[in-house]
């Protein structure tokens, strides 16, 4: 048995191509639980990249109703002066930090979906994030909507990199007990170190370790998690190092965690690792105090990072395969507080960026004249956007993934 395992492991190492499959011995638990026949799989090589703006982005100061005097009356401490707004039309414009978004807008590859939210909004970061991540208002589902989507993919076409998240934590959107995905912070440190005195012995030692993980009694707490994660880690290290070495780009990414993270995702996409869903978070949007400078900085990081990413995909001729979607757990209170900031609010806009995106406005702008306790009333359910992404971009069944198909769709993606 021992020899069989080792042979399996060795043969699988030799076979590691750009498209990575795990050997059955380390993937037993995952493989056993992924459905025999995938549902709604469309082999379209399309990729969705989620950029989470964590903390609750102030939508009103992102897409600004700069000709509405109520905007200036409600929040004098945090408003953006009219002359600084980058106009998109006579009613709204971008925050001045979003110059790169304006150029994407002018190219027609940036969509703004306004008024995103859901009924009876939660003002808790964690509850609202859970709602967005699980697409479940009741709080009963624990797995992420994209984790559930990944479960539906055909196991024959499964690859380690179907999902990938940049950071040190698994984002709940992608969580599923049936699917383990690589979480990568930095490609340089994403490797297994050996004994520097005996470098040639590392491979045998690593094989011993894989055997240990495979042999652990599966009924013990966390045994399956540890075994699956070990398998994914081992396989993804090699694939990612290869992709990193092969990657060349003339695009200079901004030197920010978001910029570096998006570059890593671009390496994985252009290295054909088979990414269907990628995820990265930019935090810090919880601007309760001294909002102006912080928010301005964050939006600049956001726009510059995504702009570079899009240019890079274009240069690699992959821009038609990839869309970026942003989201944030809520917007902020229309009225500012006494700390020159804003407290937790409700509805806000989100963005789609990509060559296949129908640029312009989608959804409906919330009405500053019809507030709910100083908060905007949402106009577009976030599950409408999820339905659109699943059905029109990923070619999956929204009914299967969301358990519901009554949310309708928006014309966000070009059908050409």
């Amino acid at each position, binding site marked *: 048995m021992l020899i069989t395992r080792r042979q399996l492991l060795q043969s699988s190492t030799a076979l590691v191509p750009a498209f990575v499959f795990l050997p059955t011995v380390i993937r037993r638990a995952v493989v056993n639980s992924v459905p025999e026949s995938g549902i709604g799989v469309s082999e379209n090589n399309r990729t969705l990249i989620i950029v989470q703006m964590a903390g609750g982005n102030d939508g009103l100061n992102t897409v600004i109703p700069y000709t509405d005097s109520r905007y200036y009356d409600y929040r004098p401490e945090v408003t953006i002066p009219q002359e600084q707004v980058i106009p998109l039309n006579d009613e709204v414009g971008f925050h001045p930090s979003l110059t790169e978004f304006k150029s994407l807008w002018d190219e027609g590859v940036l969509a703004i979906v306004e008024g995103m939210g859901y009924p009876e909004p939660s003002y808790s970061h964690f*509850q609202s994030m859970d709602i967005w991540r699980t697409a479940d208002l009741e709080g009963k589902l624990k797995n992420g909507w994209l984790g559930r989507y990944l479960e539906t993919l055909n196991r024959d076409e499964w690859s380690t990199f179907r999902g990938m998240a940049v950071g040190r934590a698994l984002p709940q959107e992608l969580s599923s007990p049936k699917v383990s995905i690589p979480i990568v912070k930095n490609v340089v*440190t994403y490797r297994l170190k050996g004994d*520097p005195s005996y470098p040639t012995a590392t491979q045998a*030692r690593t094989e011993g*370790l894989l055997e240990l993980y495979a042999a652990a009694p599966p009924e*013990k707490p966390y045994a399956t*998690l540890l075994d699956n994660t070990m398998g994914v880690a081992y396989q993804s290290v090699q694939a990612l190092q290869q992709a990193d070495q092969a990657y060349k780009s003339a695009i200079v990414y901004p030197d920010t965690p978001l910029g570096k993270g998006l570059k890593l995702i671009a390496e994985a996409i252009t290295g054909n690792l088979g990414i269907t869903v990628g995820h990265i978070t930019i935090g810090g949007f919880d601007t309760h105090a001294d909002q102006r400078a912080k928010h301005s900085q964050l939006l600049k990081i956001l726009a510059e990072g995504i702009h570079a990413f899009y240019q890079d995909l274009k240069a690699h001729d992959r821009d038609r395969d990839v869309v970026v979607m942003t989201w944030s757990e809520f917007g902020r209170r229309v009225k500012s*507080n006494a700390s020159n900031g804003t*407290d937790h609010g409700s509805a806000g806009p989100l963005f789609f960026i990509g060559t296949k995106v129908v640029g312009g406005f989608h959804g409906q702008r919330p009405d500053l004249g019809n507030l709910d306790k100083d908060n905007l009333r949402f106009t577009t359910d976030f599950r409408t956007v999820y339905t659109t992404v699943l059905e029109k971009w990923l070619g999956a069944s929204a009914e299967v993934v969301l358990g519901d198909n009554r949310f309708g769709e928006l014309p966000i993606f070009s059908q050409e």
Partner: protein
Amino acid sequence: MGWEATVDYLIEYQDVDDSELESRLASLELDLERFAPLQRWWLLHMIYTKRPLQEKMVLFWHGLLTSSFKKGGKGPHMCNQNELFWEHALGRYDTLLKAVSRDPAMLMWLDSKSNKKDAPNENFARELMELFTMGIGNYTERDVRESARAFTGYTLIKKEFVFNRNQHDFGAKHFLGRTGNFDGDDIVDIIFEEPVAAEFISRKLFEFFAYDDPEPDIVLSLANTFRSNNQSIKAVVREILTSLAFYSPKAYRAKIKSPAELVASTVRILGIETDGGVLRKLPDDMGQSLFNPPDVSGWAGGPAWINSSNLLQRLNFANLVATARRNIFNFDPYELVTQKNITSAEGIVDYFISVLLDGNMPPQEREILVEYVRGLDTQPSGTGKTTEDEKLRSLVYLVLASPDYQLA
């Protein structure tokens, strides 16, 4: 020591002299107003303290009543908050919360520093109920707004706490069904009149020490102890550590070690001498940056500690320890087994299982280790002959990197 005496020793830590640790730290002259030296300072506390329970409680409080160096910035505030947790580690929870509501690091973290009566900042009031004492669903949005008014005027001047009477809202507040001219301390007292608050903290403590999702009876009993002992954390922790549940098989290796605990306990068990320089950043790489939590809810912990990135860094930590041959960070397994006069493959495997896994590794895993060691004896993996050094160090690596060692 019997287990009752051990529990006493752990809990009655005020009787334990820890001056050796203090002189060790003093000799390093760390600048505790800066992030990296502060992380080192705390990690060294965890490694070398003779009061491990007190230090474990500080970690518990840092995860629950969390704040971040990244928001407070350079200065003594995070160190002071850590010492506040140290001082109140097993004290009364209401007392601790009242102190925390005045703690500069917390006031900066939750934006209470310019909290004024005309426009109260809700951040602290919300998290006090949602994350610290009750959990969502046990209060209304109105309770959030009203209690935020009670904390108005809790502010900082030159990063020191002041109660600014001019910015405090002295009007009547309606909070959790009561009405009165409440201030922040009243809010804390009212919260602890709610049964759910005792259950909330009891569950958190049990989950920290034993296992997740405890049986309702256990939580109710602990909550009862908490209430009948004036919100005493010590009483709850004593009950946990002396409970049958804590010694049951269900509680055995039921938790993933947090990165800080993994690093500190490994160095502690193996008796490695270090000034913490090589260790400081390791918990960060494994997903637990001390003094810099990801958000106001601290670290999710549990299964969230294990993903491909964090696991790789855990394995690389095992490698760092197993291959420690430097003067500043040295571990020599050869010396250990020679002292014990152990030579057989089974003997050395069992020895390291006893040191690192309290003698308990599933037999099929142990068998893999024995085969591995025998294989190196008869069929060297690298070029040339396998040395004892290579053999023992790779065995120690495998034990430290094993799935069992990730659990506590």
